[in-house]
């Protein structure tokens, strides 16, 4: 602020000096014939300065001194201007830095349901483009507004001191210019909006075409697509041209207004100068002052438009920031230390998904959505002693993954979304700190996610202080070690666009290794072997069996061979446990489990008509 003020004051001095030098000359009119150097009458300060420096006076000295002064003043003003720019940049970029961090941290702490329906692209857009719009406004326009205000605040007293009448003249048109800006603000905002929307439409046609290129080609619809794009492209062009027409009108009319203002100063000043009530130097200085004042005012229309845009973006950002973060624990505080043994007990657990309000309010349809509205789990009872293995199977939508998400504290199973009790080593998990709970459970989720980092960093997500040989033990158990060794950079190989692209099976095995590395008493594999082939599956299962007794394990799979070894197998349907027992018991009871087992393991010797030897073709319709 101070540097801004000083900078502006210094900027104002240069015209004043030039003005005084010019005023030195009229005296020469008297002694024009003599043409002597002494005819130049320096302003008093210049004479004092000359004496102070111990120089002898004279036009040459005075003028040289003035010249030096002008350069020094400009440089000094520049230094302050630079300081102002520096402070402004540090301030605005600093605000942006913390805004970005705040958004990021907040997103990571939002509850799982906030992401259920959110569109990733939209969220990313808010976090990047909208932040950028705010940045642009902060770094340019806010600084500009501050400068304009300071400029006016500093210059008006100076100008009034110089000449009151001319000062009134030089601000006479400013209200008109402001009013004009206000009027255009609406038109400009509309034109900008129309152009932006047209651009959005064009981009989405383009995006759809590029993403759906297979569909376009397989229907031979290139011409149709070109016609569609032509419409959107042309619309974008026309609307942008309209925007330019509005801008052209705005800038040219504001030019007329501003130049009129400058002209008024010039001619009113000239009039008064000739009338003798003002010096020529004051006039020259004033023409420069009023130019300094008028140009920022001229920007007002543009500033208003940008402020409007920034306001919209800010609103979209607060929509994210206003969502409540995940509470540290579901209820109450931690109730004492955990034994870390891994005993799990579920009693009468019922649950349904909370529905997070969608940010854009778009309705969602389809089975997927309807399924989410009823009870996903109903009166589930489970008892797992430390080290036991549970197999969890059932048709899609039967509640298997929901159960996992509850155990991980991703959703709250207490009223109003559910009821019952889930205890880990005798402690109700709702009362645990979420981080403490999650530290007890290592999990492989459906469609596991890997980060675009090196293989080693991805594994270390499971346990960051793991020793090298621990990494190796985990990857070997996941049948992944040899694949990693076959990569050129081994464990340092980058995953993702800039490195290797892993197959679905490799991704799953990475996620398994990552989970195995995590020192937690409970291990959950949610459909973690669906993309690996039979042989690898058997290897991994064998490795898991070798660890039996160390970790309480829950295996969810559609492939029954993955759960056949479990101590207990539970069949879920529509959120209820419909069958339970060990493999032999379930096969003997000839229920749904046995049916699917035979479907997946047909005995070709016995088959004749259908795929299942003991019965006819499985009915697809059940009453």
């Amino acid at each position, binding site marked *: 602020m101070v540097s801004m003020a000083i900078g502006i004051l210094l900027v104002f001095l240069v015209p004043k000096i*030039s003005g005084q030098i010019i005023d030195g*000359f*009229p005296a020469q009119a008297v002694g*024009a014939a003599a*043409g002597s150097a002494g005819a*130049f009458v320096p302003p008093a300060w210049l004479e004092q300065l000359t004496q102070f420096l111990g120089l002898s006076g004279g036009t040459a000295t005075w*003028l040289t001194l*003035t010249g030096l002064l*002008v350069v020094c003043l*400009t440089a000094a*003003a520049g230094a302050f*201007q*630079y300081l102002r720019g*520096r402070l402004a940049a540090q301030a605005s*970029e600093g605000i*942006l830095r913390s805004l970005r*961090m705040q958004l*990021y941290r907040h*997103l990571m702490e939002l509850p*799982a349901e906030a992401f259920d329906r959110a569109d*990733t692209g939209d*969220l990313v857009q808010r976090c990047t483009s909208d932040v950028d719009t705010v940045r642009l406004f902060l770094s340019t326009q806010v600084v500009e507004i501050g400068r304009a205000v300071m400029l006016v605040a500093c210059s008006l007293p100076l100008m009034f001191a110089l000449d009151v009448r001319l000062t009134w003249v030089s601000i006479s048109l400013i209200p008109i210019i402001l009013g004009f800006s206000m009027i255009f603000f609406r038109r400009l905002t509309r034109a900008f909006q129309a152009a932006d929307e047209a651009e959005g439409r064009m981009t*989405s046609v383009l995006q759809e075409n*590029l993403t759906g290129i297979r*569909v376009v080609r397989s229907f031979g619809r290139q011409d149709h697509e*070109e016609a569609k794009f032509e419409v959107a*492209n042309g619309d974008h062009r026309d609307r942008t041209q309209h925007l330019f027409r509005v801008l*052209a009108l705005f800038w040219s*009319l504001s030019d007329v207004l501003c130049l009129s203002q400058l*002209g008024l100063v*010039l*001619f009113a000043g*000239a009039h008064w*100068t000739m009338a003798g009530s003002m010096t*020529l130097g004051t006039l020259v200085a004033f023409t420069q002052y009023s130019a300094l004042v008028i140009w920022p005012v001229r920007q007002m229309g543009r500033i208003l438009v940008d402020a409007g845009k920034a306001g919209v973006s800010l609103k979209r950002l607060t929509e994210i920031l206003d969502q409540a973060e995940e509470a540290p624990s579901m209820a109450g505080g931690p109730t004492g230390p955990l034994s870390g043994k891994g005993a799990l007990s579920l009693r009468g657990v019922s649950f349904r998904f909370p529905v997070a309000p969608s940010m854009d309010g778009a309705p969602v*349809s*389809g*089975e997927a959505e309807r399924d989410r509205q*009823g009870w996903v789990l*109903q009166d589930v009872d489970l008892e797992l002693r430390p080290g036991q293995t549970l197999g969890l*199977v059932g*048709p899609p*939508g039967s509640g298997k993954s929901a159960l996992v998400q509850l155990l991980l504290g*991703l959703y709250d199973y207490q009223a109003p979304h559910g009821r019952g009790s889930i205890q880990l080593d005798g402690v109700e998990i709702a009362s645990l700190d979420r981080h403490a709970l999650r530290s007890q459970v290592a*999990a492989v989720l459906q469609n*596991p996610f890997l980060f675009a980092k090196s293989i080693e960093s991805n594994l270390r997500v499971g346990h*960051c202080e793991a020793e090298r040989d621990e990494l190796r033990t985990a990857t070997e158990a996941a049948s992944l070690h040899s694949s990693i060794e076959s990569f050129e950079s081994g464990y340092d190989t980058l995953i993702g*666009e800039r490195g290797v692209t892993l197959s679905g099976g490799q991704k799953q095995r990475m996620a398994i290794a990552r989970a195995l590395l995590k020192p937690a008493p409970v291990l959950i594999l949610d459909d973690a072997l669906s993309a690996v082939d039979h042989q690898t599956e058997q290897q991994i299962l064998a490795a898991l069996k070798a660890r039996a007794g160390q970790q309480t394990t829950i295996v969810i799979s*559609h*492939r029954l061979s993955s759960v056949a070894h479990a101590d207990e197998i539970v069949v879920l*349907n529509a959120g209820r446990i419909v069958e339970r027992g060990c493999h032999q018991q379930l096969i003997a009871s000839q229920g*749904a489990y046995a049916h*699917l087992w035979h479907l*997946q*393991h047909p005995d*070709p010797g016995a088959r004749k008509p259908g*795929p299942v030897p003991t019965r006819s073709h499985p009915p*697809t319709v*059940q*009453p």
Partner: protein
Amino acid sequence: MQTLLEDSQHAGVRLETWKHLFGFAQAYKPLMGKVALFAFGTGLADISFPLVTKDLVDAITGWREQGSGASPALGGYVWAYLGLTLLLATCVHGFIRSVGRLKTSVSADIRRAGFANLQRLEFAYYDERAAGWLMARMTGDCERLANIMAWGLLDVLWSSTFLVGIASVLLVLNWKLGLLVLTVVPLLAYASRAFQKRILLTSRRIRKIASGITADFNESIMGVLTTKIFSQQGPQAAQFSIRVDELYQSSVRNALLSALYLPAVLTIGSLATAMVLVRGGYAVSLGSMGLGTLVAFLAYTRLMFEPLQQLAHIFSELQMAQASGERIVELLTREPAIQDSESVQSAVQAQKEHPVPGRAEDGGPIEVGAIEFENVSFAYGAGQGGDKQVLSDVQVRIEPGETVALVGSTGGGKTTLISLLCRFYEPTAGRITLGGIDLQARSLHWVQSIFGVVLQDPYLFRGSVRENIRYGQLDASDAEVEAAASLVGAHEMLLALPGGYDFDVGEGGLRLSQGQRQLVSFARALLKNPAVLIMDEATSNIDTQTERNIQQALHKVLQGRTSFVIAHRLSTIERADRILVIEGGRILEQGTHSELLAKRGRYFDLLHHQGLEATGTKASDWELGAIRPD
């Protein structure tokens, strides 16, 4: 691959690139003329304002020196001033409008040409480039280049007019002082160029970091559950903060350069002001120069740096945009690797001019006939060193009306086989024939017209369900659209949607479930009534009713139609006339279900050990009644 396509630093400006791009501006010659005229006019008006002031000041001092007589009339000056104001406003209005028109027209034209070429380019081109990368070329790059061309034209013309004008006025007014003042021009030019270049370099760095931040946000949101269950919020945020800090540093650096630039050139400019004050002031005191001239000189020295700044900026922009320019030109000029040969093109032309009845649009037979793969091999990225053999020596003949089920492990080559048939790729060896005629001897358009494709996770376009189904045949009536939906058993389901057939499916069709999407795309394919149906069965969770509808529809539709089904369901496989077991790019076994089971080979293995890929993922695999929740 990615590194290959990344921004490369370019030292110079290559003329061919810009010649090609300016070719797009050629169509707008009158508009370019207007831009030039208005730029010239603006420059002229800008130069003339200080002259009016000069004359006025001279008149006033002249009148004072005389010490008597009537004061000079202001009227003439006022009129001159007003005239210049109007001239300037007209020119400003004119150039904003015409530059706007030029810019938008040129960018729309480049985009149109780019889009048209993208429609012709082969799939391999898309495989090498992410959709996001292509988007950036077609939006950001296009806009940037059109901006440079249109505003560059204006700025170069205005700056030159202004600069030459100032120089001439100064030299005419007082050539000695003028020459002295002009000595700072090289200094100003040098400083401007140096600063602009650095400013643009840091801007570029900022853009790069910003795209990294976008990627970070994207990754973190997609992996948020993983982050949560491993309690990685802290490390993730720490990593993110490194990138955010980098952005902060670069942005501040960029702002500092800009903050330094203006004071620097103003200070250099003040050297000229000082020289004018000293030398000019002396001359005035000697009476050898008018006071007005001094005032004019003072005004001009303050204006000089602006055109230089513009010129430096444009030149640096051109240099920086070189890479964008080259990428666009490459996109525009690239020849599709798969296109109709000359003989096919002339056959299409001949059929158009003298249609032979009973012939297809390319003069060939309308019937597809038997489909034969003759020793077909294929490798992705062939010829680029990165050979990855996907199909080897595939030999198979499919009779008209036959239903073929393709089974085998993921990555075995099933999808590639289909892609070759649709001519999305060209075999690296061997050939595919339809009714004995080489696929390459038929027109691409005809080939595309005979296939109906249903993908596993089909893509739907933004818009209503009706529009999406109609994509199969653009001139189909509403009744025909609904008939196609009924055929796949989707009619009731679609009517139940809010708005029925007018239900907006959203981006990518994501407001529908995957099963619903597949049904809609099934209807879309059938509306076309294709001679050959290609279907990739859905593997993932589909609810029972939708699943049942698809199965029943398949039953009806496959009858008597040549079809290829990448099958995941036993019932589909059992219904097929022939099963091809594809593993490691070869057809390992073929025959009917019972033949293959009896063989106890790979097919038996697949069925026995893995229960196929997706058994158990569908609700109907489970012998469970629909227990409805309360």
